[in-house]
């Protein structure tokens, strides 16, 4: 795929409609684990005939102190070989300890030990899969112990050490800036544009004093504004609209995708002027 097209997260409820309507999208992204089973992988192959596909994993638990799960990696590898995806991405988080899975994207402490650990695991995964991974910054609601650096320094350190590239979730930056009281623009300033391969945009909700990354709402105005800053600072990249809970009609997602496309076009025009 050339340039910086816009895609949407493809969820089971929209599968048939996407194949029937074939809306203009640069790519679609799916949760890798939902396509490990043979019939599901076959249905994704049918989508692959019309669209570039990005595999976005939620279960590899890259940041865990447990060993990487070879069975999970083997399934991801088989799926990637079958689908030949545009990207294979995972999260900069952990979800299991002592063999017990919480199946949630849990935060890492921003320490040198954690950065070295997760970077070595990303390297292992990249070696097993024979390709570079994209790793996504996650939203967080509490810190896992005291940190030694900022989140953006941590994210950059992991990417530099492992050779992975970043899937920068703009909504997650805004959510964490609110929850932890830092400046989202300072985060963007701290990221080397060369490390960034993709953007995510999604919706959040307020719960008390916290913002929660629910992927169940439209992209907020503050996040669109931050996306504009990200485009100006980092440049255009393939961008994805993510929506998981309370899934709306497909047209709502396509509307958000158009808005992202407009933002990218506007940014390019501003840069050229």
């Amino acid at each position, binding site marked *: 795929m050339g340039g910086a097209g816009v895609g949407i997260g493809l969820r089971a409820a929209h599968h048939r409609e996407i194949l029937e309507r074939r809306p203009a999208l640069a790519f679609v992204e799916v949760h890798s*684990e*939902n396509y*490990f*089973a*043979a*019939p*599901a992988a*076959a*249905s994704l192959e049918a989508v692959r005939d019309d669209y570039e596909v990005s595999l976005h994993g*939620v*279960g*590899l*638990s890259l940041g*865990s*102190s447990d060993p990487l*799960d070879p069975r*999970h990696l083997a*399934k991801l590898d088989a799926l990637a070989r079958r689908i030949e995806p545009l990207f294979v991405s995972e999260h900069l988080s*952990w*979800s*299991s*300890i*002592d*063999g*017990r*899975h*919480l*199946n*949630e994207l*849990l935060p*890492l*402490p921003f*320490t040198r*030990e*954690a950065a070295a*650990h997760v970077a070595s695991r990303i390297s292992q995964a990249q070696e097993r899969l024979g390709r570079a991974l994209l790793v996504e910054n996650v939203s*967080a*609601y*509490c810190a*896992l*112990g005291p940190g030694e650096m900022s989140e953006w320094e941590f994210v950059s350190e992991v990417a530099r050490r492992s050779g992975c590239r970043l899937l920068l979730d703009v909504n997650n930056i805004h959510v964490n800036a609110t*929850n932890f009281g830092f400046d989202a623009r300072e985060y963007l300033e701290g990221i080397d544009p060369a490390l960034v391969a993709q953007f995510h945009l999604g919706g959040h909700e307020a*719960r*008390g*004093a*916290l913002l*929660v990354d629910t992927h169940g709402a439209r992209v907020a105005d503050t996040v669109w504004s931050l996306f504009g800053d990200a485009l100006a600072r980092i440049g255009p990249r393939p961008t994805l609209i993510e929506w998981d809970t309370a899934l709306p009609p497909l047209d709502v997602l396509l509307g958000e995708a158009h808005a992202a496309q407009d933002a990218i076009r506007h940014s390019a025009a501003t840069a050229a002027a």
Partner: protein
Amino acid sequence: MSTLAAAQREFARSLLEEPGEARAGLAVYRASVGANFAAALAATYPAVRRLVGEAFFAEAARRFAVSHASASGDLNEYGAGFPAFLAAYPHAAALAYLPDVARLEWACHDSESAPEAPDFDFQGLARIEPARYGELRLLLHPSVRLLESAHPIVAIREANAPGRDGTPERVEGPDYVLVRRVDGRAAASSIAEGQWRLLARLASGDTLETALGGEPSGAALAAWVSQGIVSGFTACAR
């Protein structure tokens, strides 16, 4: 032990086990983890959920999550132990059929993620002398699951599908159930006991001669091959 491992262990412990109100951030994670597990269980066990009602199911799911750790990063693998949990759950004791309906729902879920099988090798079969057919072992498709129950679990599950009124066509008597994948979805059917036992013997690896035990079952075997229920054979001795 590394600092990271200690921090993760402590975080998981406080998230899963600490009673009472959690601080705001931890409470978000706790709610999300609980909701994810409950949603995964509800997706796999819709008939059980309808039979017991939403509140009962939610409480059973909560207790199951406490006692049964998820063992995979893939939530689709979560909940294999739920039928056994229900069998030992005192609040469900009045619903004698419930654990078997749950077993059937897990079998359907598991069947849908089973591997594919290569097409039946008719040419290979043609190379074998008919006199030696009795020595063959037939292979059932990887998506085939066989269950028996003292209750009519297929009828109960079907009656509790969306759009049905919950009244089973059959309310008592045993069930011999064949589950297999058809067009990517699990299909459960009640079959005759004799046919079920024959399939069970084939599944256990009996040779055709031993499995048949002198009964003529050619028509059933041919149908199973054409339906893809029998997907292959091995000619070698074990």
